[in-house]
């Protein structure tokens, strides 16, 4: 399953809820303000990094760029993807869950 999260983890519990319920081997795509969850060195970095062995986490690159976040600011193991990558993730997964 593909999970998307579009809220900042500093403002909302969406990311925490998503990552605690996502099954092993899920794809989690951070979009819009959700990309702040991919930041290294933040108060949320350690618990996000912990799940990276179980789920694959991606961050939408145009949304990172819009917020001035370069790829070297990402938690190692989180992959930046383009809009095409977003479409690809939506296609390869049988279901999509949007954690609005």
């Amino acid at each position: 399953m593909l999970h998307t999260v579009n809220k900042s983890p500093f403002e909302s519990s969406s990311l925490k809820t998503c990552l605690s319920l996502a099954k092993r081997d899920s794809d989690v795509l951070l979009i819009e303000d959700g990309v702040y969850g991919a930041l290294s060195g933040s108060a949320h970095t350690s618990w996000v990094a912990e799940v990276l062995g179980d789920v694959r986490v991606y961050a939408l690159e145009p949304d990172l760029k819009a917020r001035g976040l370069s790829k070297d600011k990402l938690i190692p193991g989180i992959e930046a993807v383009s809009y095409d990558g977003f479409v690809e993730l939506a296609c390869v997964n049988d279901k999509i869950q949007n954690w609005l």
Partner: protein
Amino acid sequence: MSQAKKFMYINRHAPCGTAYAVEGLEVVLIGAAFEQDVCMAFIGDGVFQLKQDQDTADTGMKNFSPAYRALGDYEVNRLYVERESLQERGLTEEDLMPLTWEDEDDDWAEKSSIHVVERAQLSDLIEEQDIILNF
């Protein structure tokens, strides 16, 4: 003119996900024309508003972040950024865009508008204000 009031605009939201940041900035720039004593505070996700290198081209949204550079020309030259909020987000002052103003009382010296302050100091600054507006 009657005595200027002390205004503080508190910015607590990230720049792109909602309209708070852009609307707040517009109000500050419009309000600056009324010659009041204006400062801004950036708390929580509001500190992301000042992140440098914001580039919205690929999202099709307007990039309003260069407009923060106009603040100095409107004598809005005290932007208080809470240090704890930066730290929680893995940011330092170097991650913020350089914002400056020219001090006419000091031979037009260019000075930084950004002041990183501790939470306790910010709390005192809020207490000093006459009018506080949140965005």
